[in-house]
C-alpha cells in the first residue's frame, strides 16, 4: 500500500529531489502537498483501495506522512 501511495504522490503531486530518501515519517504537508493535491490523493485512495474516507477525517494528522496515511486507510479498509 505504501509503495502505491509513494508512486502516486511523487509521480503526480509533489517534487522531491531524492524520493528514496523521503522516509515514511517525513512531513508531506511540509514537502508541499497542497489542497488540490489532497483532493486528488483522496480520490486516488478511494479508487485504488475501494474505500470511502469521511470528509470530517481529512485532517493534517491523518495526511501528514505515509505512516499516518496508511493507518488512516486501514481503519476504513474492511477487506
Amino acid at each position, binding site marked *: 500500500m505504501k509503495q502505491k501511495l509513494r508512486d502516486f504522490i511523487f509521480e503526480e503531486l*509533489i*517534487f522531491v529531489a531524492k524520493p528514496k530518501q523521503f522516509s515514511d515519517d517525513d512531513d508531506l504537508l511540509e*514537502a*508541499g502537498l497542497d*489542497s*488540490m493535491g489532497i*483532493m486528488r490523493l483522496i*480520490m486516488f485512495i478511494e479508487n485504488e483501495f475501494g474505500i470511502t474516507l469521511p470528509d470530517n477525517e*481529512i485532517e493534517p494528522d491523518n495526511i501528514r506522512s505515509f505512516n499516518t496515511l496508511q493507518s488512516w486507510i486501514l481503519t476504513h479498509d474492511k477487506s
Partner: protein
Amino acid sequence: METNKLLQKLNPADSFTLAMDEEIRSDGLAGSFGCFALQLEDQPDMNKLSQRIEEFAERFPVARASLKQVGKFYYWVDRKDPPPLFHYHKYPQEYDPADFQKDTLIAVMNKCETRETLAPIEFHWVSGKTGGVFFIRWIHPFCDARGADLIFKFLCTANREQRDMLGMPETGSLVNTRLKQYKWWQKALLFFKAKRHIDRLDQMISIQPFELPQDNLQLDYQVQRLSPEQTIKVNEMARQTVGLGCISLYYIGCLMRALEQLNSEAKGEAYCVPYAFNLRKQRAVTPMLGNHICALFAQASRKQVQNRRGLFEHLKKQHTEVIRKQLDYAFLPLMWAGGFLSLDKYGKVMRLAHGKDHERSSFWFSDIAQVDLNNDCFFDAKISGVFHVCHVSSPPSFALLSCIHRQQLTLSYCFVKPVATSKKIDRLQHLMLTELLAES
C-alpha cells in the same frame, strides 16, 4: 527576405492566455499582463541584481524574444533589437513614496504596446525614501504565476550551481505531456465531457457584480494583508468549513458572499468563477517558462450564496465531483482544439456563454498559495511583503489573487476603473474580511 529564428512554439495553455490577451486588448486595456511584486525595506544591491537579470536573459533567450504568427500558430522568435529588461524609477522628492510606487506600477501595467514590440518580461525597481518596490511584469504567454515564483527564486539564489538547477531539466509543455497520455478516442471523450460541463454552467446567467464597461479603462489594484493572527483564524475557519482539500473554495465562497452584499441588485442568476490550477508538481523547479495550467469553474446560484453553510457544502460537493469525474483534465483537449481557432474566435468561446452573448465569468480568481522564496532578503534588502497584480477582461472587470507569505494571507484586488471604483473596493475589502473571519 530576412527571417527571425523561431525559438519556441506556444503550447496550448500559452495560446489560451494569448487569446485572453487579445480579448483584454479589444476591451481597451493594455493586455494580459501579470505582476509579482516585493516590497523591500532597503534598496537592493543594484549591481548584483542587474548582473543576475542579465544572466537570466542569457540562460532563457525567450526573455528578449518577440511574438510572431506563423501560419495558424504563434511562436517566440529571435529579434534584432533586444529590448531593455531592467528599469529603474527614481523617487522624486516632491512625491509621497507610497503613491509614487503605486502610480509607477499602475503606469507600467497600463502601458499599451503591441505584442510584437514589447519585452515578454520586464524587471522594475521603484525607489522610495528608504526602500521601495521591485516587481516583474510579464505577458502571460511567457510564463504563469508559478513560473514567476521560480524566476524570483532564480534571481534570489546566490549559489550558481543551485541556480543552474532551476528550470532544469527542460520538460517542455506539461499540457502536451498530459495530452500525449491519452489515446485519440480518450481525448474525444474528454473534449465532449468538458463541453457538456460548460453547457451546464451556461444554463444560468452569470452575475456581473460591477457596472457595464465604459470608456477610458485602466487597471487598478488594492492589497489587503491580514495579520498572522487573522491568517491563522482564516485557515482554521477554512478547514472547518470546506476541509483541508478545498481551501481555495473558502476564499471564492467568501468573495461570492461579499460581492452579493456589495451589490445585491446586480443582474444574473449565479456566480461563475474560473480558476486555474497548476500541472507542475508542488515544489518542482521546472518548467520555469510557459504556462502549465488548466481551468476549473466554481458556480453557485444567488440563492445558494445567501446561505453561508449551504454555499460551502455546495462548492465542496461540486469540486469533489469535478475531481472524481476528471473534469479538470477534461479541459486540456478543449485548450488544444482552441489553438486552431483565430484568437478572436477562441476568446469569444472562452468568455461568452454558449449560444448567448453574456459573459460567463463573474470574476477571475487565482490562489498562488505559499510564496516560497529562499529567504527573507532580496539582494541584501529585507522583504516586508509580497503581492500580485493581473489584468482582467471587462466584464467582469475584477479579479482576486491570494497568496500567503510569512504566515500572512495577502489578497490582491485587481479591478478595472471606472467600472469598479476604489471606494467600492474599500467596502468590498471590509465585507470580505468579515466573511473570512465569520464563524460558520
